[in-house]
Each structure stands twice: as C-alpha cells, then as structure tokens.
C-alpha cells in the first residue's frame, strides 16, 4: 500500500481527495487502479501525469517500482523549451 | 518583367546570371547560384545573417539588388577559407565555441573579417560596436567577442 498525494486539479477529479491509498507495485499498476477507483482521473492519466517518487520525477517509466513507505506525488506532465 | 543580365565576380570567380529587377543579391546567391552560406533571418537588414562584402564594404545582401552586382566584387562566406585552410577567424570561432546553432555564424565571420580589415587591433568596445549589426540569439556574444580578440592576437603575431 502506498499513499499518493494529488495536486490541486487532480484532487477535484478524485472527489475532492488530496491523498489516496493505493495497493500498487509500480507506476503502471498505480495508474490502472487509480483509473478504476476514480474514473474522473482517467482523462488526466491519458493526457499525461508525471509521478514523483521521493522527489524524482518520472514521466514515462511506467515500470518504475513504488517502494513501500516512499513519497508518491502526482504532478501535471510538463513541457520545456 | 524583363530579366537583367549580370556579370560579376564572386569569391574571385567570374559569374554571370540573369535575375529579376526586384530580386535581391541574397536571393540570387541562394536560389540561383547555390551559395546558401548567407542566410535570410529577416529580409530587412536588421539581423546581419546575410552579410557579404561588396567591393570592400560589408553589406546585407538582402538590401542589395542582384542587378546592382554588375561589374563588382562580391565576397561570401564560401570564399573565406583558402582551400582546406580555414581563415584565423573561422578557426577561432571553432576553438572558442563562438557558435551554438550556427545560423548567424557566416554573417558574423564576414562582419568580423571586414572589421579587422579596417581596424586590425580593435578594443573590446570596437569589436562589440563593429558587430552590432549581426544578431546572435544563442551565445550572448561573449564567446564571439573572445574568438575575435584571439584571432586579432594571432593575426598580429603572423
């Protein structure tokens, strides 16, 4: 079980919650379960969400494991110049 | 529109071409003669990327008509190196990484060459004002100025 923190706009899509507990071993499973439990999040996941695991931001490595007790933070997927 | 027949010298070679009366020298160089070293950054003389030397004067080739080159002497970036030996300015631009994207580089090299031809030992301020007609968006000019300064030292020693 990991605790996932959602940024503002995502919280609204998850029924106003800012923290969610999810049983997930990696980012792929996290996204799948989030979409199942909170259908409102699905369009956001499709548009792209970045996952910060203990401060390191992952945009595309869906195989990245979520260590127990790590800090998981969902962020908008950003663009750069 | 009647074409204008032009006979001119480009990088030491006699060249003849036919151009439209409103066609710029830049368009002639790039589109008719395949000399694409001069770049069009603005087409209005504000960026210097199309700089060439026309009878010992630095000009924006976008502000010269192709017809005006009749009987004159045009120097472009393609004529700057001698065979496989780079001009000291070209060499110093490489060594100092005075280019990032490189689109402004041919214009800067022509401007720097013209500057040193008229002032072989310029101060930093003279270099900066001498190159003020050439825009560079990548480097902040620092390494360009240093490359010119280094080329000056080398050319004086030679």
């Amino acid at each position: 079980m990991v605790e996932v923190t959602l940024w503002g706009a995502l919280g609204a899509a998850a029924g106003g919650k800012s923290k969610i507990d999810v049983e997930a071993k990696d980012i792929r499973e996290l996204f799948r379960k989030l979409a199942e439990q909170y259908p409102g999040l699905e369009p956001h996941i499709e548009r792209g969400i970045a996952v910060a695991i203990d401060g390191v931001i992952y945009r595309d490595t869906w195989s990245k494991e979520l260590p127990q007790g790590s800090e998981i933070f969902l962020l908008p997927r950003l663009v750069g110049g | 529109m009647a074409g204008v027949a032009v006979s001119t010298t480009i990088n030491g070679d006699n060249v003849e071409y036919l151009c439209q009366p409103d066609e710029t020298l830049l368009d002639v160089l790039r589109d008719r003669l395949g000399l694409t070293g001069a770049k069009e950054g603005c087409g209005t003389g504000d960026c210097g990327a199309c700089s060439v030397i026309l009878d010992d004067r630095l000009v924006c080739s976008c502000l010269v008509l192709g017809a005006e080159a009749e009987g004159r002497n045009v120097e472009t970036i393609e004529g700057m190196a001698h065979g496989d030996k780079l001009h000291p300015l070209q060499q110093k631009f490489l060594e100092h990484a005075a280019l990032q994207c490189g689109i402004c580089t041919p214009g800067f090299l022509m401007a720097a060459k013209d500057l040193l031809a008229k002032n072989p030992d310029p101060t930093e301020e003279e270099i900066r004002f001498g190159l003020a007609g050439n825009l560079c968006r990548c480097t902040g000019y620092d390494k360009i100025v240093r490359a010119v300064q280094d080329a000056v030292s080398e050319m004086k020693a030679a």
Partner: protein
Amino acid sequence: MRYIRPQSIEDAVGLLAEPDGTAAILAGGSDLLVRMKGGFIEPDLIIDIKAIHGLGEIRETAEGFSIGSAVPCAVLGENAALKKAWPGVVEAARLIGSKQVQGRCTIVGNLCNASPAADSVPAMVAAGAKAVVVGPSGRRTVPVEAVPAGPGKTSLAKGEIIEAILLDKRPPHAGDAYLRFIPRTEMDIAVVSAGVNLTLDEKGTVKTARVALGAAAPTVLLVEEAAEVLVGSKLDEAALERLAKVCSGACRPIDDKRGTVEFRRKVAGVLARRAATTAYKRAGGK
C-alpha cells in the same frame, strides 16, 4: 518592372518624369528594398543612380562641401576634412542603421524617406544644410528642412531628384553635435533626437545657434526659441536649463511603439542640453 542605371542626372530626371507608372530611386536601397519586401510599394521602374558621374563623391569647394546623393554614410566618416568641419552631421549620418547599412545608406535617402525619426536630418537642419534639386525645369537649391512634408512625404515634384547636399565652410569657433535616444546601443530608430550647431565669438559667447529636434513632430523641428536662449550665453547652467525647457515645450510628439509623449518631451530637452554642451566644446568654448 524595369531596372535602369542611368549615366547622367538628366537621364535620371527624364526617367523619373516619364508619365506612366511609378518610379523609385535606388541609391543605398536600405529603405526602398525594405518597403518593396514588405509589399508596401511595387515600382514599375527602379532607377539606380550610383553610376551617375559625381553623385558618389564628396567635393570640397570654396563655399564648403558638396555631398553627392549616392555617397554612402560610411564614406562621410572616412572624410577627414568633413568630419573636422561638421562632426555633428557626420556622427548623425554614422548612426543610421548598422555597419552593413552604413556601406549603402545615404543622407539624401534618409532625407527623402521623410521619416520624422531620420537621424541625419536634425543634424543637417541644425547645420543649415541645403539640398540641390534637379528637375525637368532645371536646378534649384532649397534648405534641407523644406524637403520633408510629413511622414513619408516630400515636397519634391514629379521628375525631381536631389543631386547633392551642401554644407557651408566653417568660420572659426564653430561646432555641431547630434544626439539621439535609442533603447539599445545600436540598430534602433531614434525615439527622439536633437542636433545643435553653434558659433562663438573670441570670448566663448554664443554668436549664432541652430537647434533641431527629431521624432518630436511630424517633420523635423527647427526650434528658433531654443536658439535665442543660447545666443549671447556662455552655455551656463541657467541657459542650458532654459534650453531644455524650451525644447521640451516645442515638441509635438505622439505615443507609439517606440516611446510615449511624456518620454519624448522630457528626453528632447535632455538631449538638446547634452548636444549643446558637446557642440560648445567642439567650438572651443570652455
């Protein structure tokens, strides 16, 4: 469209006077080609005047200097005698555009483009320069300030062309200066500018003065009241203050992308004061 390179001024006048179509004079091309590129004009005939004998020369005469209308501004800066006599006019001409443009642009082109912000014009007006106009009915000489009639408009009639700019020979104790304000250090059009031309007596008192402002009104402003302020003074602080005030007051500027009315007013005065100080020093005043 045709491109013609006449060999004589008469041929040029003849071509310009042709009844059909529009003709454009090409000297340096730094305004003409930009306007053509932007699609603002599409002349039927381009008359390149650079092959006309004498138009590419600066001549020193008994009366002063005659600067041919095809002389690039860079050449003005290379003429030691002209630079010594009229440093303000030369520095104004040398501020037009970049080094690349300098090798092409001309003060006559700058004048006939009729931009209120033209750099060389306030300096020429302050210098009392005259333009030699050639047309179908002959030659006439007019003060430079009579040429621009409004932004983009001149008083020249169809078929007329300026052959040269005349500058007087300098008496002793004379000096001129030109300053403009631009946001960058190069490559900009003047936001506002000032040209000052002074002659002094032996003691350093101003005998005659001419003050002209650029980008301060639809055409260059010759501010006679400013000249009156300076004449009789030794450019003391009070005179300079009054000069600045008069110049600011004389402005009739506009708000545009390059500056505001308030800014132009204030800075016109500042520049006039600074240019006057330089001109005074050049005239030998202390």
